[in-house]
């Protein structure tokens, strides 16, 4: 026990004294905040303005485009940031009765690919004259980037709303009635939980959920990698023989793993303190990017974060420890464990589906499964409202998983740590488990 403690202490002190640790601890929150705010800033600065030329063969839609554009500009305040900023500056050209629109469009299309920057055109929308009368009429949108679907979508919606207005007006409705019909209702997303506490939902929750999950996942992998490096370093520095002649390999391994876990917890502790501070500040100033962060930084959040971080870390770290023990270079080790870590990361790749459906069968199954459990259950506690039995069951399953993984890892570690030969194959690793 004392020896394990000595290893743990050494790992911890050596790690937290490194400059890299201090830099990461204070840089990471800055990066996260930047990730959150930069899109909003971009929007305010108007960096995303697109110059679009609309050639209207009907000659009736001027108002639709000018009005639509104005309301879009009004909305572009500092909000959420779930959508990238997309301001459109429309140059409306009335081409009523023009039967050869593509020909008329030609000089504009040329301005898309050449010409000086001040006259740059990002897109051209053609509305054929028959659009009002023929429901099958097709609008054509030329753009420089095929991926600019946001601009396309906005223009299409402006055109369609304009056309709908005109069609309604044709049926003899007054413009007031038309406006009333066309008004869309605002949806305020509120999440209700059994405890009666209200959470604001929507795109913002999605973003914050993603960010906090990344905050949990990234250190797990960073510190897993750190363990792997440490073990390989001990092998190349040949310290390992002194170590395993002085203590059992499980004492060494467990001491290392928990030493590094404490390093991770220290870092996360600093982050959570900073987040708590920022949230308190935000609450004081009553607005934090337009919504309430405090709904996430509930006391239970801190508990869940720490619990699920430790469980996730302990799960992932086993793969890295095996890689480190079995191989002699980082590259070899990465190759060996790549398939394992990829598999373990599965919930992360499905994160969008999990966050948007915290109560789906898939999410619940993942959260109660070994390996995927910690990350998925953390997301559920964050954006969903899982029953306490699920949470506890997930923790229990993870604890069993971690014990089994650690046991296997110790065995491989014992054989691998003194082997300097070529990288073992997976069947060879299996044999090591049986031998040790």
């Amino acid at each position: 026990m004392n020896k394990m403690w000595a290893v743990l202490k050494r790992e911890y002190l050596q790690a937290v004294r490194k400059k890299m640790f201090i830099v990461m601890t204070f840089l990471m929150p800055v990066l996260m905040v930047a990730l959150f705010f930069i899109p909003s800033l971009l929007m305010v600065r108007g960096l995303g303005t697109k110059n679009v030329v609309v050639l209207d063969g009907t000659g009736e839609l001027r108002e639709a485009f000018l009005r639509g554009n104005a309301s879009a500009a009004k909305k572009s305040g500092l909000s959420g940031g779930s959508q990238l900023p997309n301001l459109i500056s429309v140059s409306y050209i009335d081409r009523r009765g023009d039967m050869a629109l593509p020909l008329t469009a030609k000089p504009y299309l040329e301005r898309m690919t050449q010409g000086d920057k001040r006259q740059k055109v990002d897109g051209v929308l053609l509305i054929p004259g028959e659009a009002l009368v023929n429901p099958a009429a097709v609008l054509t949108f030329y753009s420089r980037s095929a991926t600019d679907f946001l601009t396309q979508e906005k223009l299409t919606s402006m055109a369609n709303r304009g056309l709908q207005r005109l069609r309604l007006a044709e049926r003899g409705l007054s413009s007031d009635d038309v406006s009333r019909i066309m008004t869309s209702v605002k949806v305020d997303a509120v999440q209700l939980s059994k405890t009666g506490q209200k959470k604001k939902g929507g795109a913002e929750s999605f973003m914050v959920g993603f960010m906090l999950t990344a905050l949990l996942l990234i250190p797990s992998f960073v510190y897993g990698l750190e363990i792997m490096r440490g073990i390989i370093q001990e092998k190349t520095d040949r310290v390992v023989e002194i170590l395993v002649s002085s203590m059992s390999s499980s004492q060494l391994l467990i001491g290392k793993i928990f030493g590094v876990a404490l390093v991770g917890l220290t870092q996360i502790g600093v982050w959570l303190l900073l987040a708590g501070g920022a949230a308190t500040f935000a609450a004081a100033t009553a607005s934090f990017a337009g919504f309430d962060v405090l709904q996430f930084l509930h006391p239970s959040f801190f508990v869940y974060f720490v619990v699920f971080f430790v469980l996730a870390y302990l799960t992932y770290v086993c793969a890295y420890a095996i890689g480190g023990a079995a191989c002699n270079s980082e590259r070899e080790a990465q190759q060996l464990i790549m398939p394992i870590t990829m598999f373990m990361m599965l919930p992360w790749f499905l994160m969008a589906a999990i966050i948007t459906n915290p109560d789906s069968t898939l999410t619940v199954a993942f959260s109660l499964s070994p390996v995927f459990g910690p990350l998925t259950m953390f997301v559920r506690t964050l954006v969903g409202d899982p029953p306490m039995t699920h949470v506890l069951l997930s923790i229990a399953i993870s604890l069993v998983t971690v014990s089994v993984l650690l046991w296997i890892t110790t065995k491989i570690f014992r054989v691998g740590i003194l082997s300097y030969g070529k990288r073992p194959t997976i069947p060879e690793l299996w044999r090591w488990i049986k031998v040790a």
Partner: protein
Amino acid sequence: MSEILAVRNVVKVFDSVRAVDGVSFTVRRGTITGLLGRNGAGKTTTIRMITGIFMPDSGSIEWRNLAAGGAAVRDRIGYLPEERGLYKQMKLVELLLFLAEIKGKRPAEMRPNIDRWLERFELTDKRDAKVEELSKGNQQKVQLIATLLHDPDLIILDEPQSGLDPVNMVLVRNLLRELKEEGRTILLSTHMMGEAEKMADEIVLIHRGKVVLEGSLESVRESFGHNTLHLDYDGDGSFLADLPQVARATIDNHGAELTLGDSGDPQKILEVAMGRLRIRRFELGAPSLEEIFIEKVGIETLAAEEALR
């Protein structure tokens, strides 16, 4: 003198190679035991089983009067592995404290000990330096301190001379003698027979995983008789090997060790040698360990193995 360690018929197989194949020997308290053999004979594997790094596939390692329980025995051993290594990023003092701690010592109690050792090896001014900043010779000294810091009863040194500069070599030799006088037990593994001859009381000769010879240095040499001629001379002595009475010869630059055949007459050989060389030393005695080793294993076997390498 009492036994401290008994190795009983241990076997260790790697894949299909029997690295250690039924090795038995004992180590007595207060002696220096030389574990001899060529590279790859099975010395390091044997030592790793003794230090608890490997478990023997069969056979046993038995401890007498060292300490009860596996964990405690570990703490009474000081081990210098063949592959040297230290945490390069750590400060000297921190490293030594850590290494003492994993031997079950309290860091606070160890500080005076560390200071004493550092002073003895003239490293006091380097105590706050990182290991990687030390010269290679100094790193070797640190490794030695790490082996001895926790006052072990049994000191196991695997090829202690490998990579040592001549100054440190002498330092190690004197240190070993001193430790022996203090009553410590030393197990010294080496492929340099000459070195073992200078140091060891007992020898265990291993070849291809098996013990081929065991006993006190004196008795071993005694049993190989006094029919070996040790010659030091100036000139080209290569003809000595071709003399009819010489069964086997090891010729160096300015010396030779000649094993005489049954009919060999030392005086005759001296006569011939004096005619062609300037003799500086002529001694009839027991063979050197090197010669004993060659005789025991067989020159043909050695040559065949050499060819396979």
